[in-house]
């Protein structure tokens, strides 16, 4: 990271005069630290993972050939050897979690500076006006306390700051960004163009530029800094200086490894450097927070954390505590913060902490498209991620009650002439009838680049049966009680997953392709496991009514006014739009509110 000449972890003696403690350094923590530090708030950030520097640690051009097992996923590196995940994945060493009987929850975590923003998919879609008021529309789930219009300026600011490519299509519930905010989307690849044509002309499915947090051109540092901070000279300076160090994407190397030239969004390359440059942010890594402490009046005083290097407990104090440890981790910290005033955990008087956890509905189908065989050789890497996607297109059918599920999904798709990797030609026997020898070699050449995968990402409606709680029987290696998950899908999710698979089957067949996956009649077989899509949100929901929510619309605890939960925990719905852009926009909004309250001396 920036400002650590020794390259080791940040070992600083925390002072006792911080305005705010932020727990976690990912999307939510990074954004909160950036906004607060730029606003003159003295911040101490505690991060459970090790220090991490994408500039020097990213294996940009390394080949699968150079890695063990040709970079195949393993128990410790499930998304492949080069994936930018340290001490994480489906398991974290020394930090178990459990699932109740009948539940099969998957929880992806990472213990590193920047958290999961180092390896996330960079898909950055805005939630729309329907998404903030879903209950008002169809009577299901919960409404947010604020509307899309309230958050729209923060979407603009977040997109402008982190850099997002995409286009404004004016589609239903798929908001446009303000002029001058989005970066131009990269030209579609061959297989994307073909899919777009077939979907548009034959199936009436829109295929439009995707929105990804990747720079297709250098950011206009001065213009953006002025737009973000019209009245704050220091914030303008640190923001512009940091932006100038980011290069545009060079259309090679997978984003999941991180980006040493800072062309994609990672908290440690985009949010933490300008925050550190203000001089208002200190970071302690290897600091695993156990609980928030309170005084006799029930106000938060600071946090207890375990210093992972000494395995000893420490205490730090501040006027405000902001949890951004990720949705379920923040719920866990609250539930573990028990005291005589708060015997069931902090801010949990109504018992809602941990409740209404949501993931995204996922289902996929793989296909092989003969039209893509024997393609003339050309470089098809692009921005490593998708250039096009399909936003949900059947809002009106749902409004007319013509579908057996209430909420939408978007489609992520890709394939083509990617770098050959582990298993690139696994499972092609149904096409080749088990060829080997010279014929197999030629079959591989012929089929290379002709595979396409479609993945649905759909909205899950929160329900009473999906929650996390403290497992009474387990602690992690830091002595901290761990979480246990409960899960039951409703028919809305299961039917939606079935609809996804049928749609993908139809697209592949209309393209003249072969469906390689099993299409399930039973939605329960089509749907991904709970947690598997890694969009877990909720558990510390916001609302208008203190008896039916944990936080207000500014992520502020109803019970403890100097306590905030500014990550995805506050979500009350989980639209099909991948959550991270919204997490950051909402965290920015909460941070502005905190600054306002501090200026009014309310803490």
């Amino acid at each position, binding site marked *: 990271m920036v400002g650590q000449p020794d*390259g080791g972890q940040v070992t600083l003696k925390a002072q006792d005069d911080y305005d705010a403690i932020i727990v976690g350094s990912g999307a939510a923590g990074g954004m909160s630290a950036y906004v607060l530090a730029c606003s003159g708030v003295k911040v101490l950030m505690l991060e459970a993972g*090790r220090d991490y520097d994408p500039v*020097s*640690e*990213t*294996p*940009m*051009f*390394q*080949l699968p*050939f*150079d*890695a*063990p*097992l*040709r970079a195949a996923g*393993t*128990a*410790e*590196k499930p998304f492949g*050897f*080069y994936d930018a995940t*340290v*001490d994480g994945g489906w398991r974290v060493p020394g930090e178990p979690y459990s699932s109740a009987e009948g539940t099969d929850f998957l929880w992806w975590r990472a213990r590193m500076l920047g958290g999961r923003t180092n390896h996330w998919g960079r898909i950055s879609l805005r939630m729309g006006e329907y998404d903030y008021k879903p209950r008002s529309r169809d009577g299901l789930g919960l409404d947010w306390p604020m509307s899309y219009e309230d958050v729209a300026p923060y979407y603009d600011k977040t997109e402008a700051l982190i850099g997002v490519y995409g286009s404004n299509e004016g589609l239903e519930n798929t908001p446009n960004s303000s002029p001058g905010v989005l970066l131009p989307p*990269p030209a*579609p*690849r*061959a297989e994307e*163009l*073909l899919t777009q044509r077939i979907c548009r002309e034959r199936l009436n499915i829109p295929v439009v530029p995707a929105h990804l947090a990747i720079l*297709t*051109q250098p950011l206009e540092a001065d213009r953006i800094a002025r737009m973000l901070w019209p009245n704050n000279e220091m914030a303008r300076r640190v923001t512009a200086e940091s932006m100038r160090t980011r*290069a545009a994407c*060079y*259309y*090679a190397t997978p984003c999941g*490894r991180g980006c*040493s*030239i800072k062309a994609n969004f990672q908290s440690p390359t985009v949010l933490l450097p300008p925050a550190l440059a203000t001089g208002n942010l200190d970071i302690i890594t290897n600091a695993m927070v156990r609980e928030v402490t309170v005084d006799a009046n029930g106000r938060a005083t600071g946090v207890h954390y375990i210093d992972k290097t000494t395995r000893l407990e420490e205490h730090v104090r501040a006027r405000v505590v902001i949890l951004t440890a990720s949705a379920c981790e923040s719920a866990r910290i609250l539930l573990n913060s028990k005291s005589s005033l708060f015997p069931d955990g902090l801010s949990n008087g109504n018992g809602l902490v941990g409740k209404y956890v949501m993931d995204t509905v996922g289902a996929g189908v793989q296909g092989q498209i003969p039209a893509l065989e024997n393609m*003339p*050789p*050309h*470089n*098809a890497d692009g921005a490593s991620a998708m250039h096009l996607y399909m936003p949900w297109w059947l809002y009106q059918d749902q409004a007319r009650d013509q579908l057996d599920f209430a909420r939408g999904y978007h489609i992520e798709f890709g394939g083509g*002439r990617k*770098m*050959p*990797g582990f*298993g*690139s*030609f*696994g499972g092609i*026997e149904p096409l080749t009838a*088990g060829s*080997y*020898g010279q014929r*197999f070699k030629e079959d*591989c*050449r012929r089929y*290379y680049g002709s595979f396409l995968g479609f993945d649905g990402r759909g909205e899950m409606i929160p329900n009473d049966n999906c929650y996390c709680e403290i497992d009474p029987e387990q602690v992690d290696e830091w002595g901290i009680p761990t979480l246990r998950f409960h899960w039951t899908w409703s028919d809305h999710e299961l039917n939606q997953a079935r609809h996804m698979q049928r749609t993908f089957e139809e697209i592949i067949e209309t393209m003249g392709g072969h469906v390689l996956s099993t299409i399930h009649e039973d939605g329960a077989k089509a749907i991904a496991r709970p947690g598997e899509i890694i969009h877990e949100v909720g558990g510390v929901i916001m609302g208008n009514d203190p008896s039916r929510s944990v936080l207000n619309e500014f992520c502020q605890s109803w019970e403890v006014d100097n306590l905030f939960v500014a990550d995805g925990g506050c979500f009350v719905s989980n639209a099909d739009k991948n959550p991270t852009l919204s997490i950051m926009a909402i965290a920015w909004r909460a941070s502005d509110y905190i600054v306002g309250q501090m200026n009014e001396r309310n803490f």
Partner: protein
Amino acid sequence: MTDESRSGDRTKHPHVSERGLKLPVLGAVSMDRRQALKVIAIAAATPALVSCKPGEEASEVVMTPAPVSNPRARGDAWDPDLIAPTVPWERSLTSDELQSLAVLCDVIIPADERSQSASQLGAHDFIDEWVSAPYEANQSDKVLVRGGLVWLDSEASERFGEGTRFRELTPDQQISICDDICYVPNADSGREAAARFFDKVRDLTSTAFWTTPEGMEDLQYLGNVPLPRWDPPPPEVLQHIGLE
């Protein structure tokens, strides 16, 4: 760069030690394969920074020295050095098994005018690395692969004379055995395990083969090179998919 730290005798990919050099970027379309490989080789050694101002086309890639290792990484399986990878486990197949495996790999991917054979690119060695890995799935693949190699020799013996080994058979004789196990759904009862073995070795051989620089060149994979800008697919590609 990283090969030094790898054991095994696989073909080394080009090694370039230039530092801080500037080189012109070749358009993806006009770049021929030899040039592309050269850029890959350099890029593999050095992360590059494409610098250009908005509205101005980048004309060169500025290469900055690449780190040669990652001192921050703890070096264990949860936090390995991604810049200079190593295989931390010992190989476990015997040299006799490797000889047989090399022959089978070449039955699966033989040499032709475009590229060498699988064993020439070290596929049998990769399979050894795979089955020696400490993970459950790999350990069960080890049983499958070792058992399959014994089965091949027993089958050779049974069909072509006591003591005959699979690797000594003529190509036609080898094919006569492999034809019976090359597709799991068609395998006769009693040969399912052998068919699963063949399927596994075919999968591992194709991974091993196509992920080598020579395999990637055979497939005409042209990416993993830094580009100054991203262009739509070239006309011949659009024509190929009927989108001109």
